């Protein structure tokens, strides 16, 4: 059935971003000044789309025949994606120059990936989810390998592509089974007739395969193997985006998929699945991270552990824990991008200065970076009053509400383990003697990105309740 004009109007953020992508290409083709213009153009674009979405949060409708949802939950996620992309663009100005990958395409691909994420977040149809996922993933595959001169980049890109396609295969198979058993791709339909479909084992297999595919995207154990290599090999600024916004997008889909099933009778299958995933991810992520000396790799394992904490919320499967995951994701986006930005500033050419040793005595070189790095590490470790603490707190509390106290305890235990490697960075930054001399070049963009993320991490920690209330009201 044809859509009416108002429905297009509600899609304005997506349309603006799409037009922006096309415009960016035209700017590059006709003015040849893409490198100078596009960082600012993209920033403005993300800023507008992000804030326009969040302002229209209460216009919560299902449009295009119930295929997509605008406002509400989708708005919150749009905001997260766009701010993450904005911060990435701001933060990467120094980095991509340093590595000679200052291409206009870099910005265009980031824009496209954000469009993909936004499509995922608004989707209420498995087909739309799939299209969004592929759009995002393909952009990421390319971004990961943007620096063709470096073999580590090529390797990361190819690994990501191969394993990503592998996971996509399972997603598609899952979609096929779900479609086969329900005769429709509409999530609304699944939601309404869930009890009926649930008697069909093939439907459960289909759903599980879908969930497994997305478990790959959120980097949960045992589908995490790609993460350390890809995060380490890709350009640092790209890693920042992949590990935050990419994860958030995958979680937004998981929240939709599980929202359909768990809210009914919380099938024990999905709950068990995510409980196991969560335990494995938190423990494996936290424990292996201890053995890492390369900071990017350490944060890759930390990212696995964080996926595990959020998966605890998925296992709990109540509204509170879902809102908690959303809060956690927003907090995680800021603290992780902040950390990766600092890493990208410290990093020297040719992947040098990535190990902990280079951070020894950072306090003497740049007290600002040292302080912010410590802030982000504290936040990631989940020490109050930083944002990370409340993210974990809400998720664990949601688990307790669903009688999964043991899971919350496992989460707390592995948080304790993780404190070790986060604080080790702080120890190096403040209490070790410098053993390398180098200059840190910071531009306005990086400074802005770091200050902004730092501020947001603190704000989220100081005013958690107001934000949480906002999210709870719109996650349903």
């Amino acid at each position, binding site marked *: 059935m044809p859509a009416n004009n108002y429905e297009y109007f509600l899609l304005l953020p997506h349309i603006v971003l799409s037009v922006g992508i096309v415009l960016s290409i035209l700017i590059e083709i006709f003015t040849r000044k893409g490198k100078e213009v596009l960082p600012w153009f993209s920033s403005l674009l993300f800023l507008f789309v992000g804030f326009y979405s969040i302002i229209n949060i209460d216009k919560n409708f299902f449009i295009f025949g119930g*295929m997509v949802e605008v406002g509400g939950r989708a708005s919150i996620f749009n905001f997260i994606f766009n701010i993450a992309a904005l911060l990435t663009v701001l933060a990467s100005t120094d980095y991509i120059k340093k590595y000679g990958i200052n*291409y206009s395409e870099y910005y265009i691909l980031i824009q496209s990936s954000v469009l993909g994420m936004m499509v995922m977040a608004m989707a209420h149809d498995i087909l739309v989810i799939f299209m969004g996922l592929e*759009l995002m993933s393909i952009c990421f595959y390319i971004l990961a390998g943007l620096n063709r001169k470096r073999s580590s980049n090529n390797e990361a890109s190819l690994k990501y592509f191969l394993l990503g396609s592998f996971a996509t295969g399972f997603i598609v198979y899952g979609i096929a089974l779900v479609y086969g*058993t329900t005769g429709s791709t509409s999530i609304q339909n699944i939601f309404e007739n869930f009890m009926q479909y649930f008697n069909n084992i093939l439907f459960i297999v289909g759903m599980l395969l879908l969930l497994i595919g997305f478990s790959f995207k959120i980097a949960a154990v045992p589908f995490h193997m790609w993460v350390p290599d890809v995060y380490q090999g890709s350009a640092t600024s790209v890693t920042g985006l992949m590990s935050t916004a990419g994860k958030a997008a995958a979680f937004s889909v998981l929240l939709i998929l599980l929202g359909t099933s768990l809210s009914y009778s919380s099938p024990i299958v999905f709950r068990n699945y995510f409980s196991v995933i969560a335990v494995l991810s938190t423990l494996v992520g936290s424990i292996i991270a201890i053995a890492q000396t390369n900071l990017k790799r350490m944060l890759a394992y930390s990212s696995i552990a964080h996926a595990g904490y959020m998966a605890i919320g998925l296992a709990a499967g109540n509204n509170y824990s879902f809102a908690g995951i959303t809060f956690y994701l927003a907090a995680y986006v800021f603290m992780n991008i902040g950390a990766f930005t600092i890493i990208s500033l410290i990093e020297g050419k040719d992947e040098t200065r990535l190990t902990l040793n280079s951070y020894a005595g950072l306090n003497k070189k740049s007290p600002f970076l040292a302080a912010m790095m410590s802030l982000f590490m504290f936040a990631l470790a989940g020490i109050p009053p930083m944002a990370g603490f409340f993210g974990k707190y809400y998720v664990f509390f949601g688990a307790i509400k669903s009688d999964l106290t043991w899971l919350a305890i496992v989460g707390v235990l592995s948080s304790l383990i993780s404190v070790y490697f986060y604080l080790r960075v702080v120890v190096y930054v403040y209490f070790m003697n410098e053993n390398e001399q180098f200059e840190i070049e910071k531009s306005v963009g990086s400074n802005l990105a770091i200050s902004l993320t730092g501020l947001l991490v603190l704000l989220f920690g100081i005013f958690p309740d107001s934000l949480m209330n906002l999210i709870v009201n719109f996650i349903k």
Partner: protein
Amino acid sequence: MNIEIILFAVLALVAATSSVMMITRKNAVISAVFLVLNFFALAGLYLLLNAQFIAVVQVIVYAGAIMVLFLFVLMLLNTEAEHQLFIDKRGIKFFAIFIAAFVFIEIAFLIFKSNPSKNLSPDQAASINSGTIQTIGQQLYTNYLIPFEVSGFLLLAATIGALVLAKKKFE
């Protein structure tokens, strides 16, 4: 037993065999040829499902255009060094085969157990029309407008990616 089931069995067998052959060949060109065979078999399966348009596109685009391109690239590339990538560890190989077989058996078992076709009574008349260009076009521009538009951007991004990764020199 009607003709449909026989055709399905044959095509499915061809598709499965050709894909196994494809991934086990050491010579890339032979692999590519098996892939073409696989595509043809799939096109046949699409036809059986009344998806005429998809079947035709499958043959023209995949089996025709893309595979020819593949073969050209393979001939231009040096694939001699490929064997370095193989892992020659027997244990791992057997484990991999075992796991693959295990997953296959599991899924097969689940499918038989759930007996998916018992609830379905396909409306033959409707489904014959559903595969035509007209219906597909109509659906794409109305109900499936959003995924369709997104696929446009997907291709755009892929094109840009191909350019970035393959362009000879930047500036």
